[in-house]
């Protein structure tokens, strides 16, 4: 990575915080409208009942949980990049870590909405909280959904704290360059960070521990999500590989989302010199890796289903690839495990266009992976008489639209108001590079 002076770094990043133009606000406004659409759909559903969606018996779970898993998945790569790669001392993470973490925070927020949207009686949701009450009614800590409650809320809290801690020194930078009300705000936000070495020694240590804790957390969280299915008995759900397979899938989709976000961002904020091609290339390579894991999982599932000679298992998997949802299935296989292989070709993984296109493809593929898993299994489970079909309704699409808008709405607000690239970490990177060259 080419040499950048600390000042240049600060300038580039602070430039992103310049007052935004009309274009920006129009986009934000549009996104907000999208959020309103989603909210309206949800309101309607609460009014008339879950029947507003397309769920039925046997397919009692629909797009709400698909989107839930999808967004949680998106969240994970954020933690992967900021924590796991930090532990592995992969320098290329630094330029995108901040954006990735932010993605995590907002994706978790978005994901967190869906269990509520999914509930038949959302107004009773507090039954799931272990609040001491006079009737001594407690939630059931044997239920995978309770694991979810615990895991997701933990994940949200941790990723927010991690995010904030990471931004602390950068707040100080902005504070020192800003004036007026913004200076006041950032003075408060930066908690009076001065970069004394007394602070640095605790800070570095604390941050390392953060990373060390976030790593098992991210794995556990998506394992727990996978167990929402794997702990059940439904064929195609009840399979031991789910936890690692979901974790890999989550990171797969998340990395793709990182590319989808980074590529326009570096263009808009012309941060090409910070978010270099080398960075994107490394993300692409990691996508190949996760893609291979996911492909390996698909293959294993199929093989074991065949090996088991269990008619139920075999039927479900045959149905997946040839039945009503064959299209979704093949989209999933191609987009998730075949298309990323293109990244083996250097020309492709170094072409912005390809990177962007493939990242989109993977996002789509991963959405359909969740679709295939969640829908196709129960649509063909144990009793043939109960077999059924499923198609999302307008309400569901509306809510899905809302969720995407919400995510991008928050992300847009973030990029213009908070440092979307970690100045301190870039400086460290530069500094290391400097000392080692």
């Amino acid at each position, binding site marked *: 990575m080419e040499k950048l002076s600390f000042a240049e770094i600060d300038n580039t990043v602070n430039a992103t915080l310049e007052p935004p133009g009309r274009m920006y606000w129009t986009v934000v406004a549009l996104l907000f409208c999208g959020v309103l659409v989603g909210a309206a759909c949800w309101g309607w559903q609460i009014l*008339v009942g879950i*029947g507003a969606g397309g769920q039925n018996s046997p397919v009692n779970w629909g797009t709400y949980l698909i989107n839930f898993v999808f967004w949680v998945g998106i969240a994970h790569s954020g933690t992967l990049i900021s924590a796991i790669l930090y532990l592995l001392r992969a320098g290329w993470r630094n330029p995108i870590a901040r954006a990735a973490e932010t993605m995590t925070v907002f994706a978790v927020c978005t994901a967190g909405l869906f269990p509520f949207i999914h509930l038949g009686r959302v107004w009773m949701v507090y*039954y799931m909280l272990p609040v001491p009450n006079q009737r001594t*009614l407690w939630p059931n800590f044997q239920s995978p959904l*309770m694991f979810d*409650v615990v895991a997701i809320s933990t994940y949200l809290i941790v990723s927010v704290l991690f995010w904030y801690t990471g931004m602390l020194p950068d707040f100080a930078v902005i504070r020192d360059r800003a004036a007026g009300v913004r200076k006041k705000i950032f003075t408060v936000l930066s908690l009076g960070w001065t970069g004394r070495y007394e602070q640095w020694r605790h800070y570095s240590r604390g941050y390392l521990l953060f990373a060390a804790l976030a790593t098992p957390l991210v794995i556990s969280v998506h394992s727990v999500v996978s167990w929402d299915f794997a702990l*059940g008995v439904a064929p195609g759900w009840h399979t031991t590989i789910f936890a690692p397979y979901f974790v890999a899938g989550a990171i797969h989709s998340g990395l793709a989302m990182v590319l989808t976000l980074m590529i326009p961002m570096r263009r808009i904020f012309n941060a090409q010199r910070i978010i270099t091609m080398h960075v994107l290339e490394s993300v692409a390579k990691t996508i190949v890796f996760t893609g291979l894991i996911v492909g390996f999982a698909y293959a294993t599932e199929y093989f074991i289903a065949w090996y088991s000679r269990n008619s139920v298992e075999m039927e479900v998997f045959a149905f997946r690839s040839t039945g009503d949802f064959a299209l979704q299935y093949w989209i999933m296989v191609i987009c998730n495990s075949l298309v990323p292989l293109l990244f083996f070709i250097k020309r492709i993984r170094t072409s912005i266009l390809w990177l962007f296109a493939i990242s989109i493809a993977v996002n789509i593929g991963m959405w359909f992976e969740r679709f295939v898993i969640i829908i196709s299994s129960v649509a063909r489970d144990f*009793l*043939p*008489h109960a077999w059924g079909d499923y198609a999302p309704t307008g309400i569901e699409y509306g809510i899905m639209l809302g969720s995407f808008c919400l995510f991008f709405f928050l992300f847009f607000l973030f990029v213009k108001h908070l440092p979307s690239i970690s100045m301190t970490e870039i400086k460290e990177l530069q500094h290391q590079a400097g000392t080692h060259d």
Partner: protein
Amino acid sequence: MDRRTFLKLAGMGSLTFASACTLESEKKLYSLVKNQDDMVSGKANWYAGTCRRCPAGCGVLAKNREGRVIKLEGNPLHPVNRGKLCIRGQSGLQAVYHPERPKKPRIKQDGRWQALSFEEAIVRLAEKTRSAAARGKNRVRMLTCLEGDVCMGLFEKSMAALNGTAPLVFEPFSHEHLRTANQAVFGVSGLPSYRLENADCLVSFGADFLETWLSPVEYARRFKAMHAYADGKKGRFFYVSPWRGLTGANADAWLSCRPAAEAVICLGLIRQVLARKGSSGISTQVARQIRAVCQPYTREKVIEFSGVDPSGYDQMAEALLRAKDPLILGAGTLGRGRGDLQANIAANLLNFVLDPQLGKIDFTRRHRAEKAAGYGEIAAFFDQLAGNPPDVLLLNNVNPVYALPPEMDTSGILGSKQMFTVCFSNFMDETAQRADMVFPVSMALESWDEYGAYPDLLSFCQPAMKPLYGAPQIGDVLLRIAPDGTFENKDAKQELISRVQERWGISDTGAWLQAVRAGGRFEHAEASAGASGPAVTTAFQSWFEDPSELIRSESLLFAALPSVRFFDGRDAHIPWLCEIPDPVSKVAWQSPVLMHPETARKYGVRTGDGINLINRSGAVSAPVYETRYIQPGLAGIQAGQGHAVPGKYSGGRGANPFSLFSLKRPADAKTAFYAADPLRLEKSGQRQKLASTAGSMDPHGRKIALTMTLSDLAAPPGPEKHGLAMHDFPLTLPMPEGYDAHRDFYPPHDHADYRWAMVVDLDRCIGCSACAAACYAENNLAVVGEQEIINGREMSWMHIEHYQQMDRPDQPIFLPMLCQHCDNAPCESVCPVFAPHHNKEGLNNQIYNRCIGTRFCAQNCPYKVRRFNWHDWNWPEPLNLQLNPDVTVRSKGVMEKCSFCVQRIKTAHGHAKDENRKIKDGEVIPACVQTCPTGALVFGSLMDADSRVSKLVKDRRAYQVMGYLNTKPAVIYLKKVVHEIR
């Protein structure tokens, strides 16, 4: 008489209450401050009555809570149904509470309806009738449905007083051909009853005795008496017909044949029997004639003409010849063409040659249905109406406009201005629409009446609740419109009392009360005189003609098929009957055109394609439903739907097969027929999704609905299964002994006193779906409607699954599926709030108030018996009056499912506690178990070692659906027993 029955009888109220109990009661809180002496709120009163949904006349017990009837159950003492009810009987209540039931009489004035008070209506009617009567003979005519003797007597009397002829009895399902055939062969123009229970080999040439034929509940019972597996034996049942309905589905073999070719097959059999057995016991002259008739029907000819499968035919012939007690049943209820008459005659002859004594036909115990007028008479009646219209026409609960062929133009005739048509009806059906006055009279549950399905059988109707809208009963109306002084009694009730007194000699009040409480007099009903059949006449020859035209027709033929749900169409507006799918096709709300895949291919249509069937008489349009249960070249529609009236439930729904029929009056005019001319098929272009509740009828080799052959059972039992895979997994009882340390992670858990369980005998289940209806009634299940069924959101807690038998495709098997109350229920642990959990008596509880609607339980239920409330379902008033106050009405967003009728268990606990004892076996009877006509369901506690369930689970046939999932279901199934395929 079991304990429950006794309780019921004890609970049956007296007349004073019956007439006095009031509806207003539950409108205001303080209403019960002054309540009737024998009415305790929260406690049910039971009133015996008679079901009038069809001529079979089963005995019912009406459960009255706080002044309204909320459930019907069979009267255990009643000889016809012995405590059981069919799907229609269970649904009868909804006819009473139907939202479209007219509240007041209405009269048509210049095309618009005007409401009247009952009094006004009677006065107006009286004027009309009396002035008409004054004008001359037969100025007042009456067409009525089949009524009891007393009621008919009353009708006749008042009609006579109005100097008209006796009312004509119109029943669409009059079984006329059977009557004519009996006349022709036995010289008895009537409907004897058949002792199926004594037969060991049964052949039906279309008689759908499990759907609509004569008396379905009774014959279901008698059928299972011969066809259920018992001490190593099981009767054989062959069904010969171009289609396979519910009855055919219960046959060991279905022989598909060309329409109207049944007679040919039957004659072929006669020929073989005579050839093999000779004609011992038959007078030579009769024998000669029989020989003459069946001479041409060699095996080859039979096969050629009827298109029956040769090997099947030979098997049937063989079985018949080897049988000790064979019994032959003729054509089905809906058989209306000449071919069916021939089939009936041939069947009679075959019975005769097989058993000249006719030991299994009871000519003394004759069905009341035989009193219905024949097609000819009906036709003549309408001719007269058309030719010389009377001034007043009274129609009692009949719907000729729907049931008669369009070409008879009944609607035109009834619509004519010359006569004043009065329709005593509780639904604005086609006929009522055309009447000048519609007079809603009180229904069987609201009025005093008597209906004995058999001679000497006294079976009461008494008011189980105050008439919903205060309507008088028809008897009172006729009594009022007849000239004064016609009757010595002041009202129909008095009339009933005096008639009953003179006919059944019930003089003192005690005996009377006794009879009313019991629902009638049943002592002599069962006794029947010597079984010797009457002398066989020789009037049958002329009916048979050259069968060669059978094979000539190449065009698409049509048949109206019997429906266990809709009977003759009078019940098509009842929500439960629409909602509960047909057990064989599994299609609800619709009446598609059944078609063999070959036929469909020939006409280039497939399931779901909308088509129009057109012939000379009319046209219907409906979606195609491909099934192999119908003869190629034949299109069939189940009767009952396709009402051309406004209405939420029946309005314009489905298609009316009767509208494709036309009246045939042969020159010899011995009898008239209804027959459908060949069809023209047109694609209507649009597709319609079928409201089918079945995903797939193929069990995919899974351990779901299993069968055993007789020889399996004869063979010594094999070694205990100890495997882990689907098919070698052992039976694991939901009891501590069901656990095995090598298989189970979880420790066994005990239950307190009871472990409720159910045993389902697939060999007894006929798939009639009465259990489903009972469940709807007992547990306040919602009716979701056609669209939501298509969306896959039916709410049935108990439903019949229709599968093909695994080792023999196309052999159906019915599997009642309900919550299995597993000991290791996968649904429970996944709920984050403990809404479903295992209670101390082994029930899988579902706490509605706790449920937050994650739907994980349903996802994780291998049996998919959990039902989610996708919306707030509604009960249009006054249907809500039927709701069972003991069962919560679920709101949107909560999961529900079969509770083993926990409310009944609780009640039993109450009684047991009062008498401080434990609950006895058979004391708790869930609604489904209670009504099952064949006793396929048994309920009880597994912890009681001598309970029936404990005994049955030791049966060799016992297994658990998908038991290898180690859920340890508490619903244990007994394999269906099938005959070896030879």
